[in-house]
């Protein structure tokens, strides 16, 4: 979680100071959702992500250096600079990609689930999406498909209360996004998305269920983003009191306190871990900055499997 937090905060500091291409949608404050879910996954399980995908990528054990390099749109980035922040993916670790189209990953995850079913493996797919995506047609279509064919997909709604600036209460009439699970005859579970252990527990059950062939579950993680929708958004629509309340329930502070109180780790041990992460982050920035830009003529290289078609 600290790695994700530090990644987002490092990026924030960088793009305030120096040019960095493209928009950034950061998941600061939402780290426990990605980590609590993905800690249950095996290397060959799949994750589909959202436009806010850095945390999903890291939680699925994507390479930190390659992620940072992608932010700088470098050749060494996880997508060779083709997609940037909005499109991070690494199929080698089962991270099937972030997307700039809200809700688009939902049917994709069902399709990945079908491939698992037909190949008869015990893999699962976790499909992350936001509260805003739950109003897209793709949400209904994708979850319905996964439900009728009992596909091994865990739908995880990271409800951070806002679709860009629009508060969730003005765009849905049910109390919870998870309430919509009843329309598909699948379990719908609400969990404190800032409590990594609580997320871990509900995810474990849903993932076991999926591995056993019992079909999908819809988990709603109630959480909050600490920064704007994107780097260009100062989030003035988030009321001060609401912000303060959620900031108190910071998932990282919360978990640190838990570890110390339960004597699982000492303050010093936590500091040591944090120092290691800081060093890795510095190395990632160094790696990214010193990496080459993609060669201009490589613009056409990935359009088709054959490489001789363009121009």
């Amino acid at each position, binding site marked *: 979680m600290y790695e994700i937090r530090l990644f987002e905060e490092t990026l924030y500091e960088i793009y305030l100071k120096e040019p960095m291409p493209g*928009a950034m949608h950061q998941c600061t404050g939402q780290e426990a959702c990605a980590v609590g879910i993905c800690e249950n996954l095996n290397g060959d399980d799949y994750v589909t992500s959202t436009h806010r995908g850095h945390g999903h990528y890291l939680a699925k054990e994507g390479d930190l250096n390659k992620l940072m390099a992608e932010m700088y749109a470098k050749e060494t980035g996880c997508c060779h600079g*083709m997609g940037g922040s909005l*499109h991070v993916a690494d199929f080698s670790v089962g991270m099937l990609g972030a997307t700039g189209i809200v809700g688009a990953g939902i049917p994709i995850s069902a399709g990945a689930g079908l491939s698992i079913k037909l190949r008869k493996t015990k893999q699962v797919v976790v499909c992350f999406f936001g509260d805003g995506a739950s109003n897209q047609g793709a949400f209904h279509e994708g979850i319905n498909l996964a439900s009728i064919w009992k596909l091994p997909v865990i739908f995880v709604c990271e409800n951070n209360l806002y679709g860009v600036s629009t508060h969730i209460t003005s765009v849905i009439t049910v109390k919870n996004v998870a309430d919509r699970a009843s329309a598909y005859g699948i379990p719908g579970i609400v969990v404190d998305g800032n409590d990594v252990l609580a997320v871990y527990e509900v995810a474990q059950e849903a993932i076991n269920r999926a591995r056993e062939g019992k079909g999908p579950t819809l988990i709603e993680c109630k959480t909050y983003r600490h920064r704007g929708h994107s780097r260009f958004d100062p989030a003035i629509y988030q009321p001060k009191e609401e912000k303060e309340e959620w900031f108190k329930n910071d998932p990282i502070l919360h978990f640190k306190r838990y570890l110390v109180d339960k004597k699982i780790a000492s303050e010093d041990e936590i500091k040591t871990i944090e120092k290691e992460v800081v060093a890795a982050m510095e190395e990632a920035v160094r790696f990214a900055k010193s990496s080459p830009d993609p060669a201009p003529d490589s613009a056409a290289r990935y359009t088709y499997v054959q490489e001789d078609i363009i121009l």
Partner: protein
Amino acid sequence: MRSLTYLEAIREGLLQEIKRDKKVFMLGEDIGHFGGPFKVTQGFLEEFGQKRIIDTPICESGFIGFAVGAALFGLRPVVEIQFFDFVACGFNQIVNYAAKCKYRWGANVPLVIRGPMGAGNRAGPFHSQSEEIWFGHTPGLKVVMPATPYDAKGLIKAAIRDNDPVIYFEHKNLYRRIRGEVPEEDYIVPIGKAKVVQEGKDITIVTYGAMLHKVLEVIKEKELADISCEVVDLRTIYPLDTETIINSVKKTSRLLTVHEDSKTFGPAGEITQRVCEYAFDYLSAPPVRATSIDTPIPQSPTLEDRYLPSNTDIKKAIRKILDY
């Protein structure tokens, strides 16, 4: 006369139309308090209230269909697509409904779908595309893309008053970069009329949108000082103003088309074909096009610069035609 930015001109056109006609209302994602990502509609909600300025859930298919329904029954909706790339999620409602209600049922659909399009912002494959030909190829729709503040205001007003569905493209790189004279009073720029922006005798350069500004910049370069370029700004993609293009080519005998959209099956193909059909005998060189390449739009600055037609590409194309 006053000078406004491209964005201010669009805002003024929208504001005047909302005030002029009670049937006009706007809907889209985050257009209310937030004012949209580029702040085109900032302050609209406070001025006109929630009945006229509607924040929708994220559901393009839903709210475009909703707007078609409202348009069929007496209202004049103006839909904002937050980034025009997202319009793909609402494609069915546009190409099967909005475009075909008149043909199937004789029913008018006075609908405007507008929003930011275009590349150059390092925004990657889902926030940079040129979508004009998706709709230019669908009979029943009108497609406009203003390049100047004057045309931006005049065309948004024409689009809102039109009884057919109009797709109105705003190039996001022009919003605050381009200023120009815009009368405060009411006027429209007719849909379907191109404009000769600069007269010349050696070559006709047909272009539109952000590329107009690039072309005007390129032809001022010293290396081209000996060439007299006539520049035609299409302003409307469909219906295409064939007459203005043909008259210009008859005069100059040469054609270059420049657009930001990718090459294959892009507007340049259609424009060139019309010139071949109606003015072939006047041509003294084969027509050429300078466009983006046939790939998605990469995020990396070096790749995006390679993707887009560069000043050098345009200059080379002009030389190629002249040297034929």
